[in-house]
């Protein structure tokens, strides 16, 4: 067995030397036992060592023998393994210090995370190197093997471990929770709105969490290599989904892209599964490499979008995309080139998740816009409803006005007809009397007066009386008073304050006036009375107004010859037309009473 050699931090370079408080040991005597084969001869090799490079298609055991330099002082020493796995036993000076997992038990994978262990001072020597022996069991495709080992005083080594741990464990863990949170929100939004963008982002979060937890879990939920296939598939699907998301969110998802997406997805799933099941890591590498194509389409779309219509979202995504590219390039330079040091950690996953976060920002922006759009829609709907209501109100008012106008027109026509029948008839009568000649001046004057009365009444019926029938009576009296006085008739006026009659239309007014005028005229012409008594009052029961014109003249029997003729029939017809009851009868002790009873309603 060749003597293992320890170099004081020469690969790490500047930080090396015992004075710096640590050494990086990057050479070891390596012995490999691939499964199903005899042990290979021990060879001194540079660290880091990856099993998969020597034996990509199968697992096995490996023994790494390193020399720890002599220690100084009393400060406790520690070992820091940036990568060690997959299951290991660590011995210092022949004594078992730590056992990480059971050798050959695939449920543990220590290669995921950095490992720190303190070394009991009793095992170390002050004047001679001490042997460090790492026995590892390795499963293929799992990054098994050993990185360069950091050995030094605890005060120096622990901070180095912490930094490494921060980037490889704490940051991804934080990102995982962020993804879970955003994924739940996006899923909820998708559930509510069924919009593709939310669904895609929810899936991105799901696969992102799967991918990232594949890098974090020392004890995965599935046995190897199934878990490896799941992680690989998750990564491929994640990248495809991200490309699709970008196309949906900021560019246009063309039909051929949809087809390409599903084809690519199917191929990736098959190829990755095959790669892990049959231990052909090259296939997986090729698949990952081919994903450069959708990544480039995605990047092209982002940059083009930002160039043409820069928004904060496209700017953010562009930034994240560029970051991912830079990180990828850096990783390729730093991590994948085995000789470039073992303390490094891959930046690409973090950059990718930064991109995912940027996409989350896009989703939030989309949602905010959507909410704003809904609000605007609501507001405009409310506006339109208000407008519609106003229109309806307007048309209702118009209709009402039209029907009012119609009613007014009908009312006017009735009045006109009445004027024509009344004033017109009297004037025609007057004219024929004058044509015939021989009529007494008195008769002509009476005829003219009658025409004038008709005219006055027609005009009076159009006066505003505010539903007060008493005013109608009063106006009639006001017009007739000179003639009543001239005839020597004493008027006894008993008109009570009458309740407002809403149904008092000009037609009703006109008919009431006509009936009463007829009554007065009869008194003036035929009754030979000295007193006429007019009363108006409200009668309870069926609510109505009762108007009475009573004279103390000859009485109805004496007048009958005249009254029962044309005039009386007219009075009855008019009363009937306004729904009023008319009673004309003999008064006690003598005279006539005309009683008109109008319903209030």
């Amino acid at each position, binding site marked *: 067995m060749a003597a293992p050699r320890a170099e004081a931090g020469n690969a790490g370079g500047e930080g090396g030397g015992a004075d710096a408080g640590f050494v990086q040991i990057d050479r070891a005597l390596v012995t490999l036992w691939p499964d199903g084969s005899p042990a290979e001869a021990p060879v001194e090799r540079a660290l880091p060592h990856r099993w998969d490079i020597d034996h990509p298609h199968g697992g096995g055991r490996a023994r790494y023998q390193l020399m720890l330099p002599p220690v100084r002082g009393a400060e406790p020493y520690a070992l820091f393994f940036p990568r060690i796995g997959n299951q290991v036993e660590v011995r210092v000076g022949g004594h078992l210090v730590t056992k990480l997992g059971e050798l050959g038990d695939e449920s543990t994978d220590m290669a995921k995370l950095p490992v720190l262990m303190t070394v009991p001072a009793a095992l170390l020597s002050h004047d001679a190197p001490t042997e460090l022996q790492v026995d590892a069991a390795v499963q293929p495709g799992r990054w098994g093997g050993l990185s360069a080992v950091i050995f030094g005083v605890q005060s120096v080594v622990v901070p180095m471990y912490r930094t490494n741990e921060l980037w490889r464990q704490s940051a991804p863990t934080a990102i995982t929770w962020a993804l879970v949170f955003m994924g739940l929100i996006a899923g909820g939004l998708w559930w509510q709105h069924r919009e593709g963008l939310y669904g895609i982002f929810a899936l991105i979060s799901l696969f992102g969490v799967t991918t990232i937890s594949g890098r974090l879990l020392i004890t995965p939920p599935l046995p190897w290599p199934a878990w490896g296939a799941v992680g690989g598939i998750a990564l491929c699907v994640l990248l495809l989904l991200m490309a699709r998301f970008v196309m949906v969110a900021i560019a246009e998802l063309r039909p051929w892209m949809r087809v390409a997406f599903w084809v690519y997805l199917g191929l990736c799933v098959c190829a990755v599964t095959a790669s892990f099941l049959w231990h052909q890591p090259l296939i997986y590498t090729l698949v990952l490499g081919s994903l450069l194509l959708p990544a480039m389409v995605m990047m092209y779309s982002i940059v083009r979008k930002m160039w043409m219509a820069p928004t904060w979202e496209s700017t953010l995504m562009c930034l994240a995309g560029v970051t991912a590219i830079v990180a990828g390039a850096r990783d390729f330079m730093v991590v994948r080139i085995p000789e470039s040091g073992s303390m490094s950690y891959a930046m690409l996953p973090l950059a990718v998740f930064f991109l995912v976060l940027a996409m989350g920002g896009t989703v939030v922006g989309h949602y905010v816009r959507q909410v704003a759009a809904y609000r605007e829609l609501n507001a405009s709907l409310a506006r339109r409803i208000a407008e519609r209501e106003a229109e309806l109100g307007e048309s209702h008012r118009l209709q009402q006005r039209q029907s009012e106008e119609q009613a007014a027109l009908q009312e006017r026509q009735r009045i006109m007809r009445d004027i024509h029948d009344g004033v017109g008839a009297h004037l025609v009568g007057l004219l024929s009397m004058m044509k015939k000649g021989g009529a007494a001046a008195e008769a002509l004057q009476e005829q003219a007066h009658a025409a*004038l009365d008709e*005219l*006055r009444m027609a*005009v*009076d019926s*159009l*006066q*505003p*009386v*505010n539903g*007060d029938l*008493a*005013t109608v*009576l*009063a*106006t*009639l*009296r*006001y017009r007739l*008073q*000179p003639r009543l006085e001239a005839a020597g008739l004493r008027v006894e*006026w008993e*008109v*009570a*304050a009458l309740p407002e009659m809403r149904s008092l239309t000009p037609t009703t007014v006109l008919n009431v006036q006509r009936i009463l005028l007829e009554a007065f005229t009869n008194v003036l012409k035929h009754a030979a009375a000295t007193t006429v008594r007019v009363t108006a009052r409200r009668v309870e029961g069926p609510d109505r107004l009762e108007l009475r014109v009573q004279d103390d003249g000859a009485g109805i029997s004496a007048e009958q010859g005249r009254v029962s003729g044309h005039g009386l029939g007219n009075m009855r017809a008019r009363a009937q037309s306004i729904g009023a009851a008319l009673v004309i009868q003999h008064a006690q002790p003598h005279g006539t009473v005309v009683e008109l009873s109008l319903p209030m309603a």
Partner: protein
Amino acid sequence: MTAIDRVRVALVEDEAGTRARLCSAVAQSPALELVFTAATAGEIHAWLREGRPDVLLVDLGLPDGSGFEVIEWCRQLAPKAETMVITMFGDEANMIRAFEAGARGYLLKDGTEDDLSRHVLQLHAGGSPMSPIIARQLLTRMAPGTAAPIAAAAPAVASLSPRETEVLALVSRGYTYPELTSLLGVSLSTIQTHVKSIYSKLAVHSKTEAVFEARQLGLLDR
């Protein structure tokens, strides 16, 4: 009756036929003296600066509604004169405007011009006529509690007294002034005083309303 005692009547009427009838009606009355006849508002305005009528008859149907202006001028230029409007039958709305402008009597152009001298003398003696329809309208406009919102919000300087409201209510139901004397237990001259007071308040009322509305509209300082 001497010329000095006769009631000096001036007349403005644009329609020649009516003007002639009115002139002859005035001329026939020994108690009246026709001092001026005008066909336009301009003529009467010029004359009012010099002339001293006791009663001015104004046709409300003058072109452009200038009859109301003539009433205003008369109130300013000849404050002692009473204005009587000559109007069409049934023109109560304009009559109320005329009362607001300062008219105190009215004569209907309906062939009853024979009564002209009686009406003029009555007015000159302090009696203003009031038709039931006008009373009804004034009740609606001026009576407390029934006024329009703006009038209700206006200062109540022009509100009617209870007695005046009573007078208006009875007139609107057809009672004559003589009947009012017995119903209210007051003299005829008291009734006429009430009626005149109502007309004056109508003028004030309309001014108050105008001021109030002007304030509402910000046309006047508060």
